[in-house]
Each structure stands twice: as C-alpha cells, then as structure tokens.
C-alpha cells in the first residue's frame, strides 16, 4: 500500500513536470507567430546571418576628376562612386585614404548623394565628396570607398582608385590653371596662356598636356590610329617605358591649313582601367623643336604611375 502510494505520487510529479516542460515552447512559438512585422527584433536577428551568407554587396569603381593634378597647386578633386544596392545604410559611405603598406587608412570624409557640395544630382545613387589636394612632390594618392549594408556584418570596400600627382611645369613653361576643370587636363605652355583666337598655338609656342581617360576597349594601337591620330600625317609609333609602364609613343603632324601645321608627340600609357595621355604640340618648323622634345622627355621621366 505504501509502495502503491509512492508510485502514484511519482507519476503525479512526472506528469506535472512533463506538462510544465511541454507548455514552455508553445508559448514562445505563439509569441513569434504573433510578431508578423519584419521589424520584430526576433525575426531580424534570425535572418541576418542568412543574408550575409548569400548576398554579395558591391560598390562601383571610384572615379576622381581630375585624376591628375600637379604639385604645389591646390586643386579641387571630385571623387564619385556609384552604389545602387538598396540595402546601403545611409550616411555610411566613407572615402578612405590608403597610406603606405602597413599604415592605418585615413577616413577623408563621408560621401553624399544629396545634390549639394559637388554632388551633381540628388538621389541618383552616385555618391560624391569634393576636397582640395595640394601635394609637394610627384606621387600617387590611392583611396577606396567603404560602405555598410543592412544584413552585412562587415563593411564593403571598392576597388582602389588613384590620383596621380604630376611634376610641376618644366623650366620656361607655366601652368594653365584655367584648364583645371573637372574634366580638363594638366596643361602647361611657354607663351603665358596667350593663345591666338580659336585656341591656336602662337609662333614659337609649345603646349604640354597630361590627362587620363577610361581605357578604350580593344587594341590600344587601334584606338590611337583610328581616334587619336585621325587626319594626322607623317605618323610614327614606337614603344616607350614611362615609370615602369610600357607605353606607346606617337609622332605626328596635323596640317590644318596651307600655312598652319602642328608637330605632335603623344605618349599613351595604359594603367589598370585608365589610359594616361601626354601631349606635346608646337608649330611645324619651330627652330626650338628639339628643345621642346627634350623638355617633354624630361617631364615624362618624373611621372609616377599607380602600381
């Protein structure tokens, strides 16, 4: 009898324990089911790792305009990047300056898409930061963009972009600062910017230009022949190494009228996705031609390309 009582008591305890254990989880399930909005903390926490594992966030290439500046000249540079991913967290797009290997990157500022302070169009998913650069020696400045996305634990970074700092004007030449517009070149001339009406180089004048463009598709030699040298005569091309980059050097002549012709030397250097172009132009028959060419070669020898 006593044993029977103990067995019944044990069964009652076990049944109660079972009911208690069984009752816990359903209460939590009902709570989750009731939280149907996607903003419920419980739901967000559970999906975050899945999104992180399956979604690749990308940031478009970074562009700097101008992409070439010259030493000791404060130049406003506009840096843009396109980010169309709707998961982008507003205010998280940073422009980051990369230092030498092993050094800590520096955040230059927050890029914005509000149509203000250099941003061309608000809401076009092109983020912009404008800031002045003034470097004291030929070099390259490298930077990247980092941004945060919903559902991603780590910030995403862009491909690295570069701003090339060119040497200052050669002796006898001056910087044409009016050309330092967003898409303009770094331009020097030896005639005090006193072009003849129509942007014509005056007698005994010479002009040196450097700029970069997105590298054309296809063969570089074909691009040079079909686009750059259209209409030119007396063309001669050869390879030339500039700052450890294999470039194409092209000599040509442009006969505009019976009395006006330019002699040109152009150097085209492909680096990554960019094509860096340098030009020397002066009037055909100029007695100082060899001096201009030497000056141009000296200038090229101090150019530093990104690697």
């Amino acid at each position, binding site marked *: 009898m006593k044993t029977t009582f103990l067995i019944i008591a044990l069964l009652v305890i076990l049944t109660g324990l079972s009911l208690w254990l069984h009752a816990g989880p359903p209460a939590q399930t009902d709570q989750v089911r009731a939280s149907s909005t996607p903003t419920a903390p419980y739901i967000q926490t559970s999906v975050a790792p899945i999104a992180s594992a399956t979604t690749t966030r990308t940031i*478009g290439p970074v*562009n700097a*305009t*101008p992409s070439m500046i010259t030493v000791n000249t404060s130049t406003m540079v*506009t840096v*843009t990047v*396109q980010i169309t991913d709707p998961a982008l967290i507003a205010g998280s797009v940073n422009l980051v300056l990369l230092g030498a290997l092993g050094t800590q990157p520096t955040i230059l500022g927050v890029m914005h898409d509000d149509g203000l302070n*250099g941003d*061309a*169009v608000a809401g076009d998913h*092109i983020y912009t930061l404008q800031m002045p650069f003034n470097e004291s020696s030929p070099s390259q400045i490298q930077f990247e963009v980092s941004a945060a996305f919903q559902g991603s634990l780590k910030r995403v970074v862009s491909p690295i972009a570069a701003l090339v700092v060119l040497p200052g004007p050669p002796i006898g030449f001056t910087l*044409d600062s*009016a*050309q330092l*517009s*967003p*898409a*303009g*070149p770094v*331009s020097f001339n030896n005639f005090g*910017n006193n*072009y*003849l*009406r*129509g*942007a*014509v180089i005056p007698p005994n004048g010479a002009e040196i*230009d450097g*700029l970069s*463009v*997105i590298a054309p598709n296809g063969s570089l030699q074909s691009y040079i022949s079909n*686009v*750059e040298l*259209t*209409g030119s005569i007396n063309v001669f091309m050869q390879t030339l190494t500039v700052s450890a980059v294999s470039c194409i050097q092209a000599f040509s002549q*442009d006969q*505009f*009228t019976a*009395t*006006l012709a*330019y002699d040109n030397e152009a150097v085209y250097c492909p680096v990554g996705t960019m094509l860096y*172009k340098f*030009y020397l132009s002066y009037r055909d028959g100029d007695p100082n031609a060899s001096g201009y060419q030497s000056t141009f070669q000296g200038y090229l020898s101090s150019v530093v390309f990104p690697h």
Partner: protein
Amino acid sequence: MSRLVVVALIIGGVPVEAELYNFQLSSIISSYLSGPVGINGQVPQQMAGSSSIFFQAGVQYNIDPRLIVAIAGAESHFGTDWGACSQSGFNAWSWDCAENSFSSFGDGILAVSFHLSKWLLKHPTIQSIQSRYCPTGDGGCDVWMSNVTRYYTLLGGQQVYGVDGSITNLTFVPTSSPGFMSQSVRSAGSIGSWYGDNWYQLGTSFSGTLQSLTIKCSTDGGNFPQLLTDPFFYGSVTLNEFSDPGYGSLTNSYPLGKICTPVPTIITVPNLNIPLLANRYYRLDTYEGLQNASVTLFGTNQFGTAMWDTFIYGIGVVYYTYTFYPYIIGDGTP
C-alpha cells in the same frame, strides 16, 4: 560651375538614339541655318547649304558637327556678323583671323573641325574650349560659352558627363551597319494623300550601300476599295535621289514596288543594293493607282517634312506640309 551647366543640359532631354541622331543631323543643321538665325536676317546661302559638309567633317574627324555650327553662331552669327574677321575670308569661326582665311565656308568647316577635334582629345568640354578659344576679357568672350552652349543645345546637342567625369557627346561616332537608316514608330501614321503622290524627305549625308529597307504603310482603295483584292492596285513606294536640297533635280530612282497593302503592314524589301551618296538628298515617294486612293506611311510626327501634293496630270500643288518621318529601317553596309 561647369557641372551645374552640364546638369541643366542633362535635364533638358533624353539622349538621342544613335541611329536617329545620324539620320537627322544633317537635316537638322540645314533646317536651322535656313531659319532666321542671322543677325541681319538670313544666313548666307553657302553657309546654310553646308550642312552636308558639317556632317562630313564630323564623320571625318570624330567631332559633333553641331559644335562647329554653334561656334560659328557665337563668333559671327553664322557668317552674318563680320566684326572679327573679314567677310571675304569665310572665317565665320574667328579662327586666328590674321593667319587664316578660306576660299569657302566649306574649307573653314573642315579646318576648324580638324583643329577642334584635336583640341577635344585634351580639353573635352565646352568650358575648357572657351578658356582658350575665346578667353574671358576678349571681345564678346564673356558670353561665348553660354552662346555656344545655347546654339549647341538648340540643335539637339547635349554635353553629358559620364560617371567618370568625361564628356560623352562632343565627339561624334557615325553609326555603322545595320542601323544607319533606322527610325522608330511613334505615332499612328501620316495623313494620306488624295489621288496623287506623297513625298517624305529623308535628308542627306547617307552613305554606304542600302541592302534592304523596312517600311510600314497601307493603302485604301479610294473610290474602288473592292479592287484591293488584287495586288496590282496596292500602293507603291519609290526611293528617289536628288542632287539638291530642294529635291528638284532627280538623279536616281529606285522603285521598291507595290508594297502597301489595305492593312497597315511592316514590310521589308530585300536585295536592294542601292549605293547611297553622302552629297545626295533622298526622298520616299508614294503612288496609288486608284482614283481618290491614299497611301499612308506610318512613323513619327516629330521630325522631317512631308508634303501632300495633288499632282494631277503632272501639275503639282503643295496643299499641306507637316513634320513627319516614316517608319523606316535600313539594313546596309557603310
């Protein structure tokens, strides 16, 4: 500053389709210069008639011909204001007047286009052209950029920045096969003619060999619709070639056949092998074989010029003109 100007231009419209752009550009320039744009009235005939040379120079030197027209506008009101250069030198661009005079506007167009095409390789914006072509402080240069931009925009040009800051539209890439006579359908159709001919001016500066042509058209039967069960009475279309912008001197005629059926239909005429000449003017002519019948070409109502002419027994009277471009797709080799 330049970016603000550029943004305004982008907002002004959508980029023009390349095919449409090439197809109409010479006609657009011709129409514009034929209007009252000179400072004292009409632009000199030689300038107004140079649209094909502007176009040719654009193709030859990879430069948008509208830019050269626009600079002529800013510098000399398209050859009507000779304050800077002498009138006898045809230098409507004030392009180093002291050294350069031309024997014709055509010579000037080619020389200035060539020079500016080289400049654009290094200085790819209107702003950067201005700073040296006509620097602020020189006579009239304070408004040079705004004037060039205005004329360029009026001609349909757009200075558009790419994401990388480069300019995409000042240079000129001619359309190649097979889209070099393309035109999309944008409206129901033209007004049909009555017992006579319609003609639809296509303009000039076409080049290459036209291999096939696609047109959308229809014909009604006029007083005898029951006869349209016989293809013999379908409306016909001919591509005519003229040597002058007034379409007065016919130099070649290429019948496309009786292709316009009672039901509006897009039809392709293959195996044409028609050589198109850049200095010729082309016109589509329709003809219907039944009294009071009409041929309708379908296409846009935005561009071009069509004329409705009764043309009874060879006596042509233009009753109606309106802007129109037919549905037309050319397949050819450049």
